[in-house]
């Protein structure tokens, strides 16, 4: 092919290898999971089709990450989008799938259009399609051109990553795909967009102006909060997880944005550390979100529903799924000593370094970001108390939940593998951090020799450069384990006559409590709904049908929140497009005579303009 010169088809530098690793870490367990999952959900032929599509999906992602050429990149990118579209509409008999697929298809192509524009600009300026050539030509670009490229890349990749307000396809598309695919989409595909941002913005355009970093940080902060607040309101387990992907992409970008700010200030080592923290959260999110999506698939197979209000008590019916989900929930809530804690701790350190050493305006900015991350992580913990507590604990809220069965061996082993990986990424923090520091240093300029202060620690110790903060997760684990063991043994020895009687939950002396008196997910999230009502705009609908003035025969009550991005941003846009289409219809009335006339007039005009000798 003409655009592929012999030596620049592939690039396997540390950044590409890192993301290939992420894709592999998520996809392999998903394949294992899908062996049991697809068989339980679909017929033989359709599961084969799904597996085939997933293979192509994963391969196309790998090609995107490994390609060293704009055109190859774009083809693979488009292939990835299309295959994932087919997977989103895989259950095409449901109207929701088709609608989700439509939104996804439109959004992803708008994103690709931005990328196409950016790539054509790059080619026009650099005269080559190869990454190497562009990287060499980039220092000569004018600042204005760089700014335009930054905007195009941010919009194009941001669409895929799900940065607010470009996130709206995500909570539609991710839940509709089969769970093994949702896990890959959320765990790996949106990370490919992060790869794109790093490769093109940080890896090609050189030292950024400081406002790029600020733009990314603000977008990231908004994504975090919006994602987690919507997740709190959501009771469809897969949609809830999809909103958490928006949140976690925000957290990843907090690290990357801070890295860009530091880089432009000339704080080389701290910049690399911030990028590495973002990369750390990328891997962590891939692993625990993949895990959580697999658990949601296991729940769906067992109960046939994704609505947590209809679950409950699953921990007794599906102990291994419950334990795996708990590990994922603890990691995403940043509880020590699991993986999510380490990466959020690192990003806090990044902000602390900014807060301590920046000038006054920068101090306030980083303080705001720090508060934003703290609020996000606490809200995420609340959301996962809700998700785990309502879905897995207490009494079953429906017959389906009461009769749930534990998942098959292939599904369980995939979940347990990812849960173990989540623990390992937390306990082996020093080792992992060292690796990611090397990756971050490799794609920043100047070359790696300048990063001597970046990593000083050992396999179990993270020493954050700049603030000298230390974290030793194995020791935290040890302290925790010792504490719990000490308490257990102490009570065991002192309360020797400890008698445990099984009784009923305290019901204030009324009749036996049942599942209808349990606290629901809606009730759990009510304080949040009220506190964030300025953003969520909740409303309720009540309908009373009366026999007479005194007696209400029927009463329906409904409460919901207003999706403001859809209503105030996308709906007007869609209406605008339809209006435009109506207008265009005026020219295009379906009569061939008119079309011939158009062609004639066009040729005439062209001849007049260009026809001169």
């Amino acid at each position, binding site marked *: 092919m003409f655009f592929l010169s012999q030596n620049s088809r592939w690039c396997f530098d540390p950044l590409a290898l890192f993301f290939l690793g992420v894709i592999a870490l998520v996809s392999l367990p998903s394949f294992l999971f899908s062996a049991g999952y697809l068989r339980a959900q679909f017929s033989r032929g359709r599961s084969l089709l799904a597996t085939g599509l997933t293979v192509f999906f994963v391969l196309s992602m790998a090609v995107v990450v490994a390609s060293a050429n704009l055109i190859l990149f774009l083809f693979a990118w488009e292939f990835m989008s299309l295959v994932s579209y087919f997977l989103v509409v895989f259950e095409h008999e449901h109207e929701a799938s088709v609608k989700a697929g439509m939104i996804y298809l439109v959004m992803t192509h708008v994103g690709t259009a931005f990328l196409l524009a950016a790539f054509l600009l790059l080619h026009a300026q650099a005269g080559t399609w190869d990454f190497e050539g562009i990287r060499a030509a980039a220092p000569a670009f004018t600042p204005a051109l760089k700014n335009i490229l930054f905007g195009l890349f941010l919009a194009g990749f941001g669409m895929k990553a799900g940065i607010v307000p470009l996130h709206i396809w995500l909570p539609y598309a991710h839940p509709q795909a089969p769970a093994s695919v949702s896990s890959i989409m959320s765990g790996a595909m949106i990370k490919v967009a992060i790869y794109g941002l790093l490769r093109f913005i940080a890896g090609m355009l050189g030292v950024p102006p400081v406002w790029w970093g600020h733009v990314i940080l603000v977008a990231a902060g908004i994504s975090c909060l919006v994602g987690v607040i919507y997740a709190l309101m959501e009771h469809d387990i897969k949609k809830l997880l999809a909103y958490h992907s928006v949140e976690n992409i925000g957290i990843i970008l907090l690290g990357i944005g801070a890295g860009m700010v530091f880089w432009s200030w000339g704080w080389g080592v701290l910049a690399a550390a911030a990028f590495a923290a973002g990369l750390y959260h990328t891997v962590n999110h891939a692993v625990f979100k993949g895990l959580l999506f697999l658990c949601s698939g296991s729940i769906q197979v067992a109960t046939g529903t994704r609505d947590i209000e209809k679950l*409950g*008590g699953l*921990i007794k019916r599906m102990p291994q799924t419950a334990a795996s989900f708990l590990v994922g929930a*603890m990691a995403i*809530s*940043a*509880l020590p000593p699991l993986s999510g804690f380490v990466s959020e701790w690192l990003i*806090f*350190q990044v902000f*602390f370094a900014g807060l301590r050493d920046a000038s*006054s305006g920068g*101090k306030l900015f980083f*303080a705001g970001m*720090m*508060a934003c991350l*703290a*609020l996000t*992580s*606490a*809200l995420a*913990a*609340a959301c996962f*108390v*809700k998700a785990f*507590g309502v879905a897995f*604990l*207490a*009494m079953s809220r429906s017959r389906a939940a009461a009769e749930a069965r534990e998942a098959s061996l292939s599904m369980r082993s995939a979940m347990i593998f990812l849960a173990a990986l989540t623990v390992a990424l937390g306990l082996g923090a020093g080792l992992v951090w060292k690796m990611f520091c090397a990756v971050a240093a490799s794609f920043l300029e100047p070359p790696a020799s300048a990063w001597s202060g970046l990593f000083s620690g050992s396999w179990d110790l993270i020493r954050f450069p700049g*603030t*000298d*903060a*230390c*974290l*030793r997760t194995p*020791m*935290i684990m040890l*302290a*925790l*384990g010792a504490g*719990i063991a000490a*308490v*257990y043994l102490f*009570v065991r020895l002192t*309360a020797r006559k*400890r*008698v*445990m*009687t*099984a*009784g*009923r939950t*305290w019901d204030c002396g009324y009749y036996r409590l049942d*599942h209808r*008196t*349990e*606290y629901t997910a809606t*009730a*759990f999230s009510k*304080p*949040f709904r009220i506190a964030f009502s300025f953003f969520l705009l909740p409303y309720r609908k009540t309908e009373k049908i009366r026999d007479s003035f005194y007696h209400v025969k029927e009463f329906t009550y409904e409460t919901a929140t207003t999706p403001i991005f859809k209503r105030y941003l996308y709906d007007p846009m869609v209406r605008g497009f339809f209006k435009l289409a109506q207008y265009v219809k005026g020219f295009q009335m379906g009569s061939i005579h008119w079309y011939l006339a158009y062609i004639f007039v066009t040729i005439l005009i062209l001849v007049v303009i260009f026809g001169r000798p």
Partner: protein
Amino acid sequence: MKASLLLLQAGFAVLGAPLVSGFIRKVKNALRMRRGAPLGQPYYNIVKCMAKEEVVSEATSWIFRWTPSIVLGSTLAALMFVPVFSFSLSAPGMGDVLTLFFLFSLGRFFLALAGLDAGSAFGGMGSSREMFIASFVEPVAILSVAVVAGHSASPQGGLMACSMGMSFSGMVAAAALFMVVLAETSRIPVDNQETHLELTMIHEAMLLEYSGPSLAMLETAAHTKQLIWFSLLGAILWPWPVGSSAALSDIAAAAAFFVLKIILCAVIVGLTEVSLAKMRLFRVADFLGLAFLFSVLALVISGLGY
């Protein structure tokens, strides 16, 4: 040597923590012109609970049974990350104050799950409210500690739970942190330890299903957590002696001073509780918003160099 001192300190902290609660009650009762329960009442309660039979709801799972150990265990682990008596007595190189906060989150996470586990509406209500308040507490706590740590480089690096001297910004941050402490130790105006009214209780609602030794463990954890917050407040507002060694005489001096600080904290908390009324749940967000404002103010002041 140091490890054994650390463990000794943790032991003292756990044993002494119920006394602080008893002392606060005594202060409150004195202010209300009552005689009140004896100083050692929290100890009697714990001992009584340890000897009692335990009733566990049939609806619960292993989460409910293991939560008391996890909550108390994580609080014990948290003791390693805060300078209780002396700065030299917090484990170096293991983590910083963020680790402390997230260890508290760990305990809270499980306690909230246990609240939901019995399937009672009380427990769920308590869990929901606890997580709600915690989400506003966390930004204030982290930001105020960051301001103090950023104002003067701390000896052990990172966000250590102490300041290096009294400063104006440190005091404003401590004011913010004091409001956090009220929320975290379930004190008026955020929560009320003395009532079991379903409209108002938060922390107690989550514990409602617990009895016997499990309840004793959770009570001990709450007392210990309170002591940790008080010592954090003390270390930030009034750090003395700074940079003392691990020599026994220094530690003894620091311990005496520490007791003084805790008594002061307890008196202030008692006074606050007696003079304020409990807030509605949604006013708590405003209360903690004010605390957040204080921490931002502290940041601005520290930016000015005070």
